[in-house]
């Protein structure tokens, strides 16, 4: 019998808010342990939660960016379970009335077909504290760091629309791009600002039954999600074929063993409405205002780049995957740089140079207006491409205008025929053999002669002009 997998994802995204979700403490979990705490996030007697407007806005933008519909009324519930990382005994989460419902992401599947993978709902919730287990001498101690307690999270719960690990990985990549676009989170799986759990079951292909699912956690890269799902499908298939029952439980992905391993059953507590956080009422006007704050999203941007600038689909997608790169590209084009030149210099020169220097495109000293000025010199044939690359390197180390660097370094291209004539005559005299070769039909010899003239000019001559002059002289000769 052939089986197919039914997969749903639950994705936690940590919002990049300035403060925590219910108090004014800085949202910096990585600081000195317990530095960012107050009576509210420590849940001391008498403290009351106050929902952060920024968290609500960032979660709303994220929802809209994923095509989900913001609900006019949502509310927080208490997800009741007890653990030392949650000493108040419940987590504030939106279980009954989530912030938004619906939405989804179109992915280009392995077979080249575009498929929509649907989102069931998106809700906000608070993170819990972090537990640290240490030894004090021979005594094991458990330490609790509340810096993360109350950090703003959203959880994106998908429909069980996924059938393959590839779909799950594509979904996560696209989701990450879109969330970065709206600016709500960095969505890095390696530092935990995005965490994905997968619910996986299998069934005979062609049926629509829903069988017992297994939840898999602890994947800290998109690749691990794919690997864990592949492993789990194989494991469940083998189990079913051996007539063993699949039991509802949670497994952890072990990236070293490349296997999922069962973890202790998790206690699922009840959920009751929270009486302290007022219900969230969103007016149509507020939702509309959020919508106007949405930037152009990657898919739409890619389509525009293809249509407006004649880029290929692949080129457009690679530019639009990162909002910073796409914005940089737009800024170059807005300054009159030809789209293809802009794309070429951005992807092959600037981005590698920025990465090499461990800088950010946004904050690098080579701002779009400076690169545009450089590319403008190139377009006007005032410098050649080699010189432009050298100027670019210098631009990282100073704030001089490209023109000034060109002048200082003497990179200005010689395009003046009168200036080049004597150099060309000299080369033609010295390289009589190459001239003869060319005249006997060896076209390659022309390139050699161009190179010699270039060398004689100290790299400053305009190769186009040299070629024209050589053509003229040799044709005439």
């Amino acid at each position, binding site marked *: 019998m052939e089986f197919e997998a039914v997969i749903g994802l639950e994705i936690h995204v940590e919002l990049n808010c300035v403060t925590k979700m219910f108090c004014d403490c800085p949202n910096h979990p990585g600081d000195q342990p317990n530095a960012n705490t107050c009576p509210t996030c420590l849940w001391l007697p*008498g403290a009351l939660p106050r929902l952060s407007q920024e968290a609500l806005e960032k979660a709303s933008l994220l929802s809209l960016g994923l095509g989900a519909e913001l609900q006019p009324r949502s509310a927080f519930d208490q997800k009741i379970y007890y653990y030392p990382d949650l000493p108040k005994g419940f987590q504030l989460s939106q279980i009954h009335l989530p912030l938004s419902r619906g939405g989804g992401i179109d992915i280009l599947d392995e077979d080249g077909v575009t498929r929509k993978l649907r989102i069931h709902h998106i809700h906000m919730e608070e993170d819990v504290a972090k537990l640290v287990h240490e030894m004090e001498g021979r005594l094991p101690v458990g330490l609790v760091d509340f810096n993360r307690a109350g950090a703003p999270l959203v959880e994106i719960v998908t429909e069980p629309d996924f059938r393959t690990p590839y779909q799950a990985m594509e979904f996560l990549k696209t989701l990450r791009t879109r969330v970065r676009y709206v600016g709500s989170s960095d969505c890095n799986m390696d530092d935990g600002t995005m965490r994905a759990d997968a619910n996986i079951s299998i069934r005979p292909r062609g049926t629509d039954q829903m069988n017992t699912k297994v939840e898999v956690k602890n994947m800290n890269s998109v690749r691990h999600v794919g690997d864990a799902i592949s492993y789990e499908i194989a494991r469940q298939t083998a189990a079913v074929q051996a007539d063993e029952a699949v039991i509802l439980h949670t497994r952890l992905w072990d990236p070293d063993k490349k296997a999922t391993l069962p973890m202790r059953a998790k206690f699922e507590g009840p959920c009751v409405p929270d009486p302290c956080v007022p219900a969230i009422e969103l007016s149509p006007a507020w939702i509309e205002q959020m919508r106007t704050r949405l930037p152009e999203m990657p898919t739409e941007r890619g389509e525009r780049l293809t249509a407006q600038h004649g880029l290929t689909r692949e080129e457009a997608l690679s530019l639009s995957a990162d909002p910073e790169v796409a914005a940089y590209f737009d800024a170059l084009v807005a300054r009159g740089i030809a789209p293809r030149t802009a794309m070429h210099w951005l992807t092959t020169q600037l981005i590698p140079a920025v990465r090499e220097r461990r800088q950010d495109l946004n904050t690098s000293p080579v701002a779009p207006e400076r690169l545009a000025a450089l590319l403008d010199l190139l377009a006007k044939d005032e410098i050649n491409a080699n010189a432009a690359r050298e100027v670019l390197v210098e631009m990282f180390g100073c704030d001089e205008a490209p023109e000034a660097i060109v002048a200082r370094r003497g990179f200005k291209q010689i395009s003046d025929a009168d200036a080049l004539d004597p150099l060309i005559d000299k080369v033609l005299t010295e390289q009589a053999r190459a001239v003869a070769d060319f005249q006997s039909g060896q076209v390659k010899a022309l390139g050699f002669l161009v190179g010699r003239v270039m060398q004689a000019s100290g790299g400053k001559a305009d190769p186009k002009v040299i070629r024209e002059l050589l053509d003229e002289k040799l044709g005439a000769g």
Partner: protein
Amino acid sequence: MKPALQQDMTVAVPSNISMRGRPAEAGSNALTGYTAVEDATVVRRLREAGAHLRSSACVGEFGFGLPVGGAAAVAPRPSAGGAEAVDGAELLMDFMGESRLAAAHASIYGLKPSYGLVSRFGLIGLIPSMECCGILSGSLNTIGEVLMTVAGQDGLDFSLPEEDAPDFSPREIRPEEITIGIITEAQSMAAGAERSPATGDSRGAPTPRGAEGFRASMEELRRLGFTLREVSLPGYELFSLVHRVVGSVEASSAAGRYDSVRYGPRAPGAKNWNEMYLMSRGAAFGTLIKSYLIQGAFFQFERYEAFIDACRIRARLVEDMRRLESEVDFFVLPMDDGPAQEVRSGAGVPPSLAGLYESHASTLYANVTGQPALYLPPVPGSAPTGFQLTGPRLSDGRLLDLGRFISESWGGE
């Protein structure tokens, strides 16, 4: 502009209302050694207005319910009625009518403000959607001044409504323009108390105190020229059930933070930290609170649907009260102050939830609906108990005007 408090007014603040740097043990072993790190908003505002703040003890764990009858008859009374309360004021956490009941025991005035009128920031509570800071005093003017001082948004309690605090400026009461509603079902409940010994204890022939006080109050209101109209609230007897289910569920969650680990005594001898948490919580709470929390956990874990039903009934009761508010301006309700004044032969019986709910049966409604409620003591010698006045949510200022008019007509302030 808020008028200042009277010079040198003394206000007693129990230990379940936070005063920065003061032990805030709230009468619970779970909070032993816990010192408040912030002032409650009510405390900060009173302090800023120049009040002398004095500490008062919590009666019972978390100040939840007033012990009445049984063992409670030998338990200390709330300090309400002491010299401070007569001249000054006393704050009291009000979960189920404590401030009205304490006022009745001391024959002074007691106000439970509207939910959302006074910030709950810094209150060490149990039932977030029902609790508030009650005010007791021998003077309605004092209650008014304290309320004006503490009411209004503080940016720390987001459950306060966006609108401004109600107008507290005194306005004239013209009895001929005012209709006061009598809720048929509340009346018959008070009358019912005459007939059946509800607790089944050795009460003998129950004193029909509440009913008698109520009859006297209605006569008095008629005499003053108010129009009385009987209205029906068929679900009235459900207030107790709703309070008990919703209240215990909220308490079961809210008490989670009183973990007796970060403060309070940790239980010794645990093998690991999970066990330490569980044992500490088990040891921290007293019998009454523990049975309340377990009852709440039962609804959370086992009877969620019943809890949701209780929430629906609560919403319907609020709606029904709103509907009646379009027919009348205020309501008068009986005040059954329980057998506290009489020493019972059952002394020594531990307080029970059933007993607690029974003794607060006539006051629960206002905590369920969030309305303001005011206890007015009787003219001395005229009736065994006083009565309650209530009105629409946030009508606290008008309610105090009405109370003042009535008490002045009796030769009060």
